[in-house]
């Protein structure tokens, strides 16, 4: 309050009310990718703001909440309350790109379901390693369908609701056909986003576990 002795020029740029300053500090701490120092806060805020005081207000406002205002070295940050860490386990998911073999296998199942392993191999032109389908099943994107009523009664594979959900589809029949893909420019021979290796990595599969039923349709 002793600051009221500011000169006339400063009063032209009067600082926003403290409640407003508190909002600003809240938003900056929330959106910032790293802890923010008081100096940095004041640098960003309008002239005349008192970030230190705003921080104190904010800190007491969040006391006992699910989120806290904490000091990290010389800077400030917002963190979830430590006692709620158990809720955060889901954030620990690490995502990896699906291999090209898996994508192609998945695509064939999606477009041709119900589809046997031999059919997948015939369409891909290479054998499908057991691990690929197992992985898709484990991810719950693919499950076993009815057995095909042909000699050997082979199992078939179909896609799951989890698959549809992940790819934002209402049904597998909504997948665009070849001509539509072409019309949409999707058949252009360019590296897909996230660039999967364009080099033919089929060998990764071929050597795998020496599928005896390779090309059994022949």
């Amino acid at each position, binding site marked *: 309050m002793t600051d009221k002795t500011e000169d006339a020029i400063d009063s032209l740029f009067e600082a926003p009310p403290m409640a407003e300053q508190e909002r600003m500090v809240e938003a900056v701490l929330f959106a910032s990718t790293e802890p923010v120092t008081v100096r940095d806060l004041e640098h960003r805020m309008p002239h005349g703001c008192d970030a230190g005081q705003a921080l104190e207000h904010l800190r007491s406002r969040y006391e006992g909440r699910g989120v806290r205002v904490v000091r990290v070295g010389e800077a400030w940050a917002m963190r979830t309350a430590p006692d709620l860490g158990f809720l955060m386990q889901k954030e620990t998911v690490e995502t990896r*790109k699906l291999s090209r073999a898996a994508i192609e296998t998945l695509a064939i199942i999606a477009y041709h379901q119900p589809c046997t392993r031999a059919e997948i191999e015939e369409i891909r032109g290479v054998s499908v390693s057991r691990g690929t389908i197992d992985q898709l099943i484990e991810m719950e994107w693919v499950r076993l369908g009815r057995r095909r009523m042909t000699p050997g009664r082979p199992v078939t594979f179909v896609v799951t609701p989890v698959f549809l959900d992940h790819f934002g*589809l209402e049904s597998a029949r909504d997948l665009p056909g070849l001509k539509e893909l072409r019309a949409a420019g*999707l058949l252009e021979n360019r590296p897909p986003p*996230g660039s999967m290796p364009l080099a033919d990595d089929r060998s990764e599969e071929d050597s795998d576990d020496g599928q005896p039923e390779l090309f059994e349709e022949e």
Partner: protein
Amino acid sequence: MTDNLFTEDQTSVAERLAAEALIVDVDGFEGPLDVLLTLSRTQKVDLRKISVLELARQYLTFVEKAKELRIELAADYLVMAAWLAFLKSRLLLPPDPSEDGPTGEELAAHLAFQLERLQAMRDAAARLMGQDRLGRDFFARGQSEDVTRIRTVTYSATLLDLMQGYARIRTRDEFRPFVMDRDSVFTMEQALDRMRGLIGFAGSWTDMVSYLPEGWGADPMRRRSATAATFAASLELVKEGHLEIKQSDSFAPIQLRKRPNS
């Protein structure tokens, strides 16, 4: 000829200028509907009250001008011109009760609707882009939480990955010309390898055909490939100085023998 013969073309100077500007900028337009929408603005009225007849006339003037200036208009501009000329005649002539199909008024109303709808979508697009936007006006949490975590791995793939993956497989056949069918192909390298092993024994003139690999003589396609490869390999060996080659006449058997001093 008097001027009033061309009453139809007696448009205001401003309109003429506008039409010229349109033509110069024709590449900037997204098709005839876009041009019509721009032209309709010169009428300075609510799109619902627009005079389609007037608009048709303006558009036809625009196309005529373009022709005068020898500007190549895309086919759809000309299709639109033909259609508007038809519409104009429908609007001007009294309706023929014997004729089927929609009246001029119905067609005009639909065109007006299309223009209004396009304008509305453009306005909507502008409003949409002017909304508060994530990462520009409002922000998500900037920092991921550094709580101790249970690490699980999930695999991700996008719909594009999936569709492109499928497209890649299904269009493999289209790319076949690039992948030679190797079954019936005997390469020059193979022939060369074979010949190098055999020429040591070719002391006297021998028909080249006898150098063809076993099993390649019967099937015509395989024989052709093996003959060509063997011939090319022979020439290569002649060039290297290991072999002599002769043919006594056109289409006569080609004969080979080892070069005496090699």
